[in-house]
């Protein structure tokens, strides 16, 4: 793995536990298993909403607010996950996704 990849992953988030709301997608996964994407409604970004990651047992793992561009990102472990998008108007949409180390699983979710 290159140092550039580490920097790319590190720059994407605040220190500590600060949630990286949306933000620019990472181009290089480095040693992370990344699940990221964008939520749209009728082609426009959904900026008010939440993306939730559930494990294969259906348990909550993490949740982030969507970014201004409808974006979200998770640093998962290799395996199968479920992404749930929550948005105003009672919208709840699920997508299954497989994450792998060094890879970015990219999702476009239309609600």
């Amino acid at each position: 793995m290159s140092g550039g990849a580490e920097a790319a992953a590190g720059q994407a988030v605040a220190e500590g536990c600060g949630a990286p709301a949306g933000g620019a997608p990472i181009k290089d996964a480095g040693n992370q298993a990344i699940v990221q994407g964008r939520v749209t409604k009728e082609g426009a970004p959904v900026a008010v909403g939440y993306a939730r990651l559930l494990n294969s047992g259906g348990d909550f793992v993490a949740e982030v607010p969507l970014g201004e561009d409808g974006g979200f990102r998770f640093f998962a472990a290799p395996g199968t996950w479920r992404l749930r998008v929550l948005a105003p108007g009672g919208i709840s949409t699920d997508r299954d996704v497989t994450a792998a180390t060094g890879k970015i699983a990219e999702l476009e979710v239309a609600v």
Partner: protein
Amino acid sequence: MSRSDVLVDANWVEAHRDDPGVVLVEVDEDTSAYDKGHIRGAVKIDWKKDLQDPVRRDFVDRGGFEKLLSERGISNDDTVILYGGNNNWFAAYAYWYFRLYGHQNVKLLDGGRKKWELDSRELVTEVPQRSATSYKAKEQDASIRAFRDEVVAAIGSKNLIDVRSPDEFAGRLLAPAHLPQEQAQRGGHVPTAKNVPWSKAAEEDGTFKSDDALRTLYGDAGVDFGTDTIAYCRIGERSAHTWFVMHELLGQPNVKNYDGSWTEYGSLVGVPIAVGDAS
């Protein structure tokens, strides 16, 4: 203590936010969320800049907390309504922190910012101007904060509740899944800890589950309601949410939050660690 002593709903906030003696405070994991829009009248507290010592790993001291609340225009007898995103994760942490320094009248907005947003309620960007006060804090309440030696001593004798996700408990992840997995400490959990992820205490809209559902949740995981409890997570925020559930909602008498949590415990030399999934 009943729910109405520690929780309010959105209708209550809309009816009472302009009452004298009521102060809304947003505390978010995403510290920029407030700037993009907040409940009208709410002031902001930044969990990192405002509540952590800038040099040592510890909280701001009593004088620092007094200065913060004085600047925000919060008085000792104000009713502080805290809310934030992600099921009130960081708002519950602030709640515990306010209690730590002895603030009496503090409540959470049930469901927090998420429910407010998903219900399409109004958010504004205007920052309220509040007159400064002369806030007086108490000494830290040692009965609700656990330190590392207490955690080691509690192995096999008290309830230890690891409130992280099952993958963090097992040692497969070292941080919540929305953060990079690059911490240096060892993975795993404190031996004899039960794994009850903090988020299980909340409904999907972020509101707290009923008392009966909460008792079933912790009871089924092996938590003994007749024994003292220490909750921990990675840096002490998620476990503050569980502290709120156990101490404030369920009325358990001796519950502490171990804010050092896994980033401290998993870096200690010589302490026992268990790995693998909960049995």
